[in-house]
């Protein structure tokens, strides 16, 4: 994940280089292209299998196995999961949790890192290490203490509990990453801002934020998708049907000894569509934001 974030600026740079040397592709380029295509196919293969089985009837699946195209494509699996799980409600739960976590997580990360990376608070390295503990600890170890705390406060079995947990966990990662980025922030720009009479608040909003926007946007998308897919902690804290998220609705399809493969496939397909849409929509929006910032 760290790689991807760090690559964002470097990708831009290599793009420029490629533009200068147009139409000249070396053997190495072709080889890389072939590997990339193979890689993409390998990555897409499970999705393809999922899509094929999502529209199959169970009879068809029993007779022909998972690797064939559906004989009589049917929407039945999707429709029945939509109804039985009350999908719209689960969707709203997942969406609200993931979105709020992404917003709060990013905000917290930026504020933390501004203090740690640019503010250079004393002992910042140790503070970062302390914050990272939230991420380093196995989630299993967190369950019981959190359960006791949330029960006391009265938010066990509510979306708020998940929002609190993941805002902290995600922002720990965000703080670690962003404070490293801010640690290398050009001092000259900061000094210029101070000379211009900018307060710290203005420095953050008008100088630091626009420049680090690419990293922040990537963090935002990651936080959203990670939280969306979280399974273990929501499973421990969300018991009621009214508060459960999509991954939990999916797991309810799997019985103790029985599993309806085609229905599971259609449900899984249905559950990843929102994240893909989110990714596509926001990635573009955020990229526009980056470009706009760069022009200024």
């Amino acid at each position: 994940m760290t790689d991807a974030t760090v690559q964002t600026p470097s990708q831009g740079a290599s793009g420029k280089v490629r533009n200068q040397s147009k139409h000249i592709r070396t053997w190495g380029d072709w080889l890389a292209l072939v590997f990339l295509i193979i890689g993409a196919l390998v990555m897409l293969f499970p999705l393809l299998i999922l899509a094929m089985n999502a529209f199959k009837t169970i009879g068809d699946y029993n007779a022909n196995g998972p690797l064939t195209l559906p004989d009589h494509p049917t929407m039945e699996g999707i429709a029945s999961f939509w109804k039985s799980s009350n999908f719209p409600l689960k969707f709203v739960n997942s969406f609200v949790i993931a979105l709020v976590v992404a917003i709060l997580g990013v905000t917290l990360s930026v504020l933390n890192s501004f203090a740690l990376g640019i503010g250079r608070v004393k002992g910042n390295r140790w503070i970062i290490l302390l914050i990272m503990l939230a991420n380093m600890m196995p989630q299993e170890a967190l369950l019981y203490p959190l359960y006791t705390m949330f029960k006391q406060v009265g938010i066990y079995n509510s979306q708020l509990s998940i929002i609190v947990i993941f805002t902290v966990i995600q922002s720990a990662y965000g703080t670690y990453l962003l404070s490293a980025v801010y640690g290398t922030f050009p001092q000259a720009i900061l000094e210029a801002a101070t000379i211009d009479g900018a307060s710290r608040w203005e420095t953050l909003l008008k100088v630091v934020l626009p420049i680090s926007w690419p990293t922040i946007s990537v963090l935002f998308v990651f936080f959203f998708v990670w939280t969306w897919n979280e399974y273990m902690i929501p499973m421990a804290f969300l018991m009621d049907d009214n508060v459960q998220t999509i991954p939990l609705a999916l797991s309810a399809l799997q019985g103790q000894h029985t599993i309806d493969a085609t229905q599971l496939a259609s449900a899984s397909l249905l559950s990843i569509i929102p994240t893909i849409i989110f990714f596509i929509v926001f990635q573009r929006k955020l990229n526009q934001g980056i470009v706009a910032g760069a022009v200024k």
Partner: protein
Amino acid sequence: MKIKGMVAALAITAMSISTLAACGSGDNQSQEKPETLSVWTYESPTSAQYHAWKKAAEEFTKETGIKTKFETKSFTQIAQNSSQFLDSDQAPDVMESNRGNGSAGMLSSMGLLSDLGPYVKKYGWDKKVTQADSSMARYDDKGIMDGNTWYGLPSYAEFQRVYYNKDMFAKYGVEIPTTMDEFEQACQKFKDAGVTPIDADAGEYGVLWLWWQLVSTKADKQFMADWQMYKHDVNWKSEPLTYATNTINEWLEKGYISRNATGLKAEDTNSSFIKGDYPMYQTGTWNQSRFISQVKTFDWEAHILPGSKLAQGCTGNLMVIPEKSKHKDYAAQLLDKIISDGIQKGIAEEGGIPVSSKVKTSSNEKNQAMIEEYASFSKKDALSYYPDYPAANLTDAIPAALQELVNGTKNPDQVLSSIKDAYTSGVKDMDVKN
């Protein structure tokens, strides 16, 4: 200012959520008539028992005017997190619980389940359910099954049978076996004809069930009491264990069971039996209704593995009333509906095994045969349950050990000794041994 506002908003959200959840009359036990009872289950909504529960709930609503709210949870969620939510004020009124010392037994010993004693007396459940069938519903104060206190109500039973693809038997000129020798001869004939005879998975529990069923052909009740109820130390050199482990190994070497079984899961073996790829498949009776509705291309019949002294299985998952339920009397009334003759008959018709001894028939002859076969064992108290009941770690440890046998990376002695280690440490952790 802004931060204060946010904190206030968070606090208000938290409070409104918690007050919503906490409505109800506190400790005023069962007196007030509730509007709805909440019921949490993890059974597949297409199963016979789930239909039965729903039907019982309808009758209950008609009689009392109290609605029921069924919520389907995942098996893992109930298995892993029930001790947490049963201890909160979010506990449901009725819950499906896995039976055995590691699940319902553990919950009962933690004081999370209601003692159903008064209701058993009131409704006469002990007269409807045989001693053997209620053994999984009764626990002692350490949470060991077959105790004296009822903590749950069984509503159906299940056991392991071998399903035979009759068309394949006819095609290769093999008789359906009635003794262990004939069974092995049949396997050999199929093998000679180039067909792998036994459909089994080692990715989940298939080989484990086969292994325990082989144990059940040699074991007596004393062995089972030692294994399941910790009466004496298990004799690891005894015939049931060595015979079963060696036989599985032999079947693997002869190719009766494919070594590819390690990569298979229950759903793979289910669908390949339905497809008609294998002549024999030992599986739980929870698959019977699925086979009835989904096997289209061949005729089948099923019997317990030839030569079995004990049937592997028992009553299915229990319906329990959490200690924190605020409407126990009504919940018990709902449970009594589940065990009523009409509902039990419905289970029999749909391919499940009823536990009420008053219901013995099904109009489907395959179901009828299954019910009779189960009754013949349950009447004699000849059930071997499942091998992983003594300790929670065995559910993973035994399949893992047997997987090494299937892989060929361990010999039978080594496999038995790793099961022994897991059993010994697991039982020690349970802290139940007298």
